[in-house]
């Protein structure tokens, strides 16, 4: 199950692929909010922002499950473990903020011409936290090598280590 969620069958970690969708859609929702708040786009963009947040939340559930499977294999003594913990903590807050935002929008989005002040503020805050969290996620890959070479057909870990390129051991090396 863990191996499945990590993307072993796919030959490529699943979490970084799935997160594209919520990251982009929530950021897009902020852009649509800023537009409607300034009187641009009207109800079409109010609805678009709403669906962007909802689709983002649905896909984020998959991102959480696959993310937990990734986190499980990062040993507590690895530097990436702490980055991972912050990444996870921030994402829980981000997920909660967008959920609240949806609850605030659900009654009005079919008619409203503009976004409310509170949902807009939530969009701004959640997007900032998401960018910080996303940066931490990227650092885990590109600075710490999490997921790199883990499912690779050719084992290039030694060669890469000589070049100072961080990698992650294949599954099974944790215990």
């Amino acid at each position, binding site marked *: 199950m863990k191996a499945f969620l990590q993307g072993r069958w796919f*030959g*490529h*970690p699943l979490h*970084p*692929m799935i*997160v*594209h*969708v*919520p*990251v*982009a*859609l929530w*950021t*897009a929702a902020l*852009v*649509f909010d800023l537009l409607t708040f300034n009187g641009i*786009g009207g*109800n*079409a*963009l*109010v*609805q*678009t922002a709403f*669906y*962007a947040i909802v*689709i983002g939340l649905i896909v984020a559930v998959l991102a959480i499950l696959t993310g937990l499977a990734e986190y499980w294999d990062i040993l507590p003594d690895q530097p990436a473990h702490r980055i991972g913990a912050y990444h996870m903590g921030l994402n829980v807050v981000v997920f909660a903020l967008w959920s609240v935002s949806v609850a605030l929008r659900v009654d009005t989005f079919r008619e409203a011409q503009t976004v409310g002040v509170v949902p807009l503020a939530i969009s701004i805050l959640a997007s900032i936290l998401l960018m910080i969290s*996303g*940066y931490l996620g*990227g*650092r885990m*890959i*590109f*600075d710490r*090598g999490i*997921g*790199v*070479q*883990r*499912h*690779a*057909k*050719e084992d*290039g870990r030694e060669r*890469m280590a000589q*070049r*100072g*390129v*961080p*990698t992650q051991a294949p599954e099974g090396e944790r215990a």
Partner: protein
Amino acid sequence: MKELLQGRPFGHPLHPFLIHFPIGLFVMSLLLDLMVRFGTPSNALVQGAYYTLLGGVVTGIIAALVGLADFVDIPSGTTAKQIATGHMALNVLMLIAFGASLYLRTETLGGTTVPNLPFMLSLAGIALMGISGYLGGMLVYHHAIGVGRHRENEEARP
């Protein structure tokens, strides 16, 4: 300039960060197309699909330019270079498909559904993006392109 486009000052390549936006927006645009074609016809969602597609094309062009900075540093004759070349070619085709889809929508932007041709073009774009994205993932996770790069000095670069 190349160093900046590669994201070295941030300790994180820029291209894999930027592509979140076109990927997510193209996916959403297609979902909105599906909603108006198979669910309820709605002008709001037709417009939503149009503007998410527009956002995807714009951010996609930016991501493509930044991706070139990563491409030029992959040594020729390697498997990684072959994969990167395929990744780039597919992305160019993908942007053409989505760009054409966007263009064909302008006349029906006031309607409540999306015509067949732009819808098919978006479907083709998503298929190309799926293959291309997989190749991009191979570059990072199998060939470690961009991984640990910000820590390398000029001489040690592969």
